[in-house]
């Protein structure tokens, strides 16, 4: 074969060597004026590493597509009968392949910094690439030494064993790459932070350079988390969307600190404040991302997602974590005091609101970390097995989310430096009627104090964001032409921020709505009608289907309201006989205000006494959770396309913007 597994293995080793050079040369060269020209090697090395790793990844994909079962990883995770799409996506559905994907994405980040970072000072870019190279080298070593995806198997089996039907799903296929891009993307702000610490200088320009990377990573992480939650909602068939599983928390924790980072970097960019804090947040976010991988990969926290239960891998990853996190934190402790403090501001000001956002987000993050880490630590120290679940996280995080939402609506209307709370509030008076309507609707439809409060405040966030945008456009008393010209001159990043805030409001509204979701588990004969949430759910018929490699039981559940048929749901229970596995195919009908969600369980009895177990859900506002996340990510993307970020750093424009704001 032209590009077989050995070549792939070699390319991986080559990438690792290039990464080591990418780390060592710029760091060494930047120290002395004599060798400074060598710093310019860093981008070339980063691109070289990217090419090597792409080839390596490509060769693994080729092995999977060509059914080369002499490669152990392919034999264990693929099979001849698997559809082509899942042969490709199955490459990263296992431990070895996912580590390789992780390093590939890290190399992609390095390549992106080389290509899009042309406006950066050479030394800074060299150092950023050096840090990325160092992290990359560590993970590639991990891949080569403890989890080699190209290991050969002799004798090669005739067919592979990897046909887990649960994993053959488009949602799961694209969930890891997007989530990993989010995780790994925070390596770039991290590298910027460490480079700034080495340099001993953080200024507004640094904030402007680091922010787009943080926003991009944040947008991907948002999408990744939402996709994972959506997958568990429509595949697992439990009607739930978030289980506070350690693995899920491991992605939520960096998202919380990452959100804080995206906001605090604004203060660095506009006002040169919160510099030390932003550097710390950048380090913390990537550290949490790394620990997230560690929690997933090592099996320290046992969970459905854990692939590896191999202690050698655990120790290697632990050492890697200690070097990266410990090293960067010690560097921070050593160099942070030399960074100068920034601009002054009053507690009530845009900066103050952003500080409040940071404090609250970090408090929520601390709660989630405690809830996630306390059980395994108690197990380790006291030998008691305990667990915490949704009740704990609900009770501890929602009271912190409420002030966050309140401040979120108000914050964007506050001016920089010093604000008058009542005047800013009058700017938002157009938001009051909408919020009151929201209050009435939430009162009517939701049950419980906390869901109603969350619902109202998220309506407030949406309304205030729209009101603030209307004020900026001069919609009140402005002509169409003036509004249009204002809309054009407004920076894309403000549009992006407004959109992201609206998205966050929509997500929280969806979450609050889900708290009043209703469900019923019934065992009924054909023709029986169940009443749930004001609708009649009738099991009209059952049929047996035969799929390509499974037998299925399919139900027709007619949902009607006052005799008027809304929809017919067709949930299935599939029995994959050769794998001894059954999967449930959920049937969902949505009208964007609620999901009608039906699952069929076991068949009981025979003949005329046959009954079927059904699980029926009426999920209020369920689609909003993921729609909001998508809008948040689009907002992030929109803010990335801002002119100021695309075209270098036009200092004059920034100076003007600072003066006017």
């Amino acid at each position, binding site marked *: 074969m032209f590009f077989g597994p050995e070549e792939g293995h070699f390319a991986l080793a080559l990438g690792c060597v290039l990464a080591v050079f990418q780390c060592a040369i710029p760091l060494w060269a930047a120290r002395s004026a004599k060798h400074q020209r060598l710093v310019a090697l860093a981008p070339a090395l980063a691109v070289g590493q990217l090419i090597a790793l792409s080839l390596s990844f490509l060769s693994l994909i080729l092995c999977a597509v060509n059914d080369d079962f002499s490669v152990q990883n392919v034999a264990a995770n693929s099979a001849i009968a698997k559809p082509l799409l899942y042969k490709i996506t199955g490459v990263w559905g296992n431990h070895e392949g996912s580590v390789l994907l992780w390093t590939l994405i890290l190399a992609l980040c390095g390549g992106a910094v080389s290509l899009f970072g042309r406006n950066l000072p050479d030394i800074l870019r060299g150092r950023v690439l050096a840090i990325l190279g160092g992290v990359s080298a560590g993970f590639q070593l991990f891949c080569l030494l403890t989890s080699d995806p190209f290991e050969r198997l002799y004798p090669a089996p005739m067919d592979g064993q990897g046909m887990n039907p649960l994993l053959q799903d488009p949602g799961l296929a694209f969930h890891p790459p997007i989530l990993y891009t989010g995780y790994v993307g925070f390596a770039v702000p991290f590298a910027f932070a460490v480079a700034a610490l080495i340099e001993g200088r953080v200024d507004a320009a640094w904030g402007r350079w680091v922010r787009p990377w943080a926003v991009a990573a944040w947008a991907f992480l948002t999408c990744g988390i939402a996709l994972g939650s959506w997958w568990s909602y429509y595949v697992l068939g439990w009607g739930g969307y978030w289980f506070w599983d350690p693995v899920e928390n491991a992605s939520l924790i960096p998202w919380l600190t990452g959100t804080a980072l995206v906001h605090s970097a604004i203060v660095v960019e506009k006002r040169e404040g919160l510099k030390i804090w932003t550097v710390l947040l950048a380090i913390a976010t990537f550290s949490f991302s790394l620990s997230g991988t560690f929690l997933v990969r090592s099996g320290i926290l*046992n969970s*459905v997602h854990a692939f590896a239960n191999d202690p050698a891998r655990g120790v290697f990853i632990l050492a890697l974590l200690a070097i990266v996190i410990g090293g960067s934190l010690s560097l921070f402790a050593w160099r942070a005091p030399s960074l100068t*403090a920034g601009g*002054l*501001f*009053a*507690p009530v000001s845009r900066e103050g609101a952003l*500080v*409040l956002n940071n*404090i*609250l987000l970090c*408090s*929520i993050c*601390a*709660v989630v970390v*405690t*809830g996630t880490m*306390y059980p395994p630590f108690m197990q380790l120290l006291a030998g*008691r*097995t*305990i*667990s*915490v*679940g949704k*009740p*704990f*996280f609900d*009770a*501890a*995080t929602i*009271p*912190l989310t409420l002030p966050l939402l309140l401040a979120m609506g108000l914050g964007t209307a506050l001016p920089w430096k*010093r604000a008058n709370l009542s005047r800013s509030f009058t700017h938002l008076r157009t938001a009051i009627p909408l919020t009151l309507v929201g209050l009435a609707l939430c009162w009517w439809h939701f049950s419980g104090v906390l869901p109603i409060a969350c619902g109202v405040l998220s309506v407030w966030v949406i309304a205030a964001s729209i009101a603030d945008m209307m004020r900026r456009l001069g919609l009140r008393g402005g002509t169409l032409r003036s509004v249009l010209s204002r809309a054009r001159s407004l920076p894309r990043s403000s549009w992006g921020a407004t959109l992201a805030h609206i998205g966050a409001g929509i997500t929280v509204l969806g979450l609050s709505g889900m708290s009043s979701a209703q469900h*019923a*588990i*019934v*065992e*009924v004969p054909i023709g*029986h009608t*169940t009443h749930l949430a004001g609708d009649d759910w009738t099991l009209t018929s059952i049929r047996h289907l035969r799929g390509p490699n499974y037998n299925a039981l399919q139900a027709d559940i007619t949902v009607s309201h006052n005799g008027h048929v809304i929809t017919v749901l067709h949930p299935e229970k599939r029995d994959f006989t050769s794998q001894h*596995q*059954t*999967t*449930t195919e959920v049937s969902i009908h949505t009208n964007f205000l609620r999901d009608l969600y039906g*699952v069929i*369980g*076991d068949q*009981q009895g025979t003949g005329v006494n046959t*009954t079927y*177990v059904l*699980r029926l859900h009426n999920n209020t506002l369920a689609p909003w959770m993921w729609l909001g996340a998508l809008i948040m990510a689009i907002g992030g993307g929109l803010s990335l396309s801002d002119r100021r970020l695309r075209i270098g750093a036009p200092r004059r424009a920034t100076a003007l913007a600072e003066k006017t704001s």
Partner: protein
Amino acid sequence: MTRKTRRLWLVISCLACLGLAAGLTLRAFSSNIVFFMAPSQVRAHPPSPDRTIRLGGMVVAGSLHRIVAHNTPINEFQITDGQAAITVSYAGILPDLFREGQSVVALGTVEPGGAFTASEVLAKHDETYMPKEVAEELRRTGKWDPRFGKAPDAASWNTMTSSEDSSHKNTKTGG
């Protein structure tokens, strides 16, 4: 506003928030921590009925039976750790990996009568894997030593259970 007062404000708000977070966490911990218990522990020290626990062990072979009350399917089975067996009733669909004679973890509360009402049943591990808590409990009670091979079938434990009265009264908790 001087630098000093600004710093004071920052410190005060940080402390207030962290204090709030710590308070919320502790409060939530005190009422929402879920302890893992084995059937013999539940027998010895029954937790109060409003306390959610995780009950883990093996499903006694032949103990699963189903009743339908008001069109709601209720599964009743026994969970044993070799010392004692607890009757569990669960209104809902058992997970696909649920098997008699295999390990299971049920989340729920102990009724005053001693029966266990589960709100969730977890059996998401494959046949070769036993939840850590269950394995530990088996080792602790001396029913199984992992050095001497696979765990015995749970059906045999029931007969190993010496004094314990494992015949259960059908506490029909329609739900």
